[in-house]
């Protein structure tokens, strides 16, 4: 009897430990595979491509690479000579049209005071209309002047945002084309995180849930929350061919890889002194709120 009790006790201890191991291993599996977190996160920021509004030679670059600039700071200067001349020309045209308008007006006034026996009605009407035309010409010249002034102002390229100049390759002497980007400015206030979550994890959290961002290779944690979830990604298995026919990939059926869906995480606060670079890798752990769990 005692022998059997001892034997049962031995078996029970071993099985209890084995059971605990299985239980914990299963919990770890669920935690690792089925909780809303991803190692595939990226720090992102809005980048403004700075392109000049007027063409010309670059005469001065006022910033250094990676320099911090405020909104409105001068980035570079395009040679204003052409635009200065254009401005002078526009002013001259305005003066000329103004004189012409004065002449046509006085002619019209003079004819208006004469009666039908001295000049024909046609002649009087013509001078009235010529005065109206001269007024329109004068206004067009004023608009051209304003445009020339705007070109002059736009020959100084300024930063539209607070941020950092990046990849500065423009040099004095380069020719700047209208609309061709010359440098990039990274918006200081626009940093966010894209967490690429596997599709089956999307059901586990909702917009507004808190998220923890761990930058790669550092113990630093940033707090954030789920801002939005992307509502569409490309179907990689079905690119349309040139004749607009479907091109379904004959995929291997056994292993199905889950797609990654971008989830936008808003960073609540960026600690002072932290160098946060757009493009950094991070892990994102979403903590679903209790309301959602139930």
């Amino acid at each position, binding site marked *: 009897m005692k022998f059997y009790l*001892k*034997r049962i*006790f*031995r*078996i029970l*201890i*071993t*099985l209890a*430990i*084995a059971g*605990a*191991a*299985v239980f*914990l*291993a299963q*919990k*770890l599996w669920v*935690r*690792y595979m089925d*909780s809303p*977190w991803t*190692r595939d996160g990226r720090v992102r920021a809005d980048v403004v491509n700075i392109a000049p509004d007027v063409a010309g030679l670059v005469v001065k670059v006022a910033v250094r690479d990676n320099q911090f600039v405020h909104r409105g700071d001068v980035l570079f200067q395009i040679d204003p000579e052409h635009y200065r001349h254009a401005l002078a020309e526009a002013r001259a045209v305005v003066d000329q049209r103004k004189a012409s308008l004065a002449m046509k007006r006085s002619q019209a006034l003079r004819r208006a005071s004469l009666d039908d026996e001295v000049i024909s009605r046609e002649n009087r009407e013509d001078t009235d209309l010529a005065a109206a035309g001269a007024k329109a010409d004068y206004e067009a010249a004023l608009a051209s002047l304003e445009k020339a002034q705007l070109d002059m102002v736009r020959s100084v390229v300024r930063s539209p945002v607070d941020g950092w100049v990046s990849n500065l390759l423009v040099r004095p002497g380069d020719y700047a084309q209208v609309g061709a980007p010359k440098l990039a400015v990274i918006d200081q206030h626009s940093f966010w995180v894209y967490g690429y979550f596997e599709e089956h994890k999307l059901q586990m959290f909702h917009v507004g849930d808190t998220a923890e961002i*761990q930058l*790669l*290779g*550092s*113990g630093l944690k940033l707090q954030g929350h789920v801002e939005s979830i992307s509502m569409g990604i490309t179907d990689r298995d079905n690119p349309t061919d040139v004749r607009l026919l479907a091109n379904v990939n004959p995929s291997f059926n056994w292993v199905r890889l889950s797609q990654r869906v971008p989830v936008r995480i808003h960073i609540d606060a960026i600690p002072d002194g932290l160098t946060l670079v757009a493009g950094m890798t991070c*892990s994102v752990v979403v903590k679903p709120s209790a309301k959602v769990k139930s």
Partner: protein
Amino acid sequence: MPREFALLDALVPTLLLAFIVAAIGTLVLDRLFAWLGAYRVIWYPALFRLSVFGCLFAGLGLWIYQ
């Protein structure tokens, strides 16, 4: 606890570290149990050792991925 660590500049999940720590821990506990004579009250020492390893590894993993 960071979720990955640098192994020769390649970043791998900390789970690998937990695996190594659990293996060493199991060896140490094995010596300790042998010295205490605990294996006399164990039914199947090999299964017991494996289970101890499983508990250590899963426990560490759950702590890392809280």
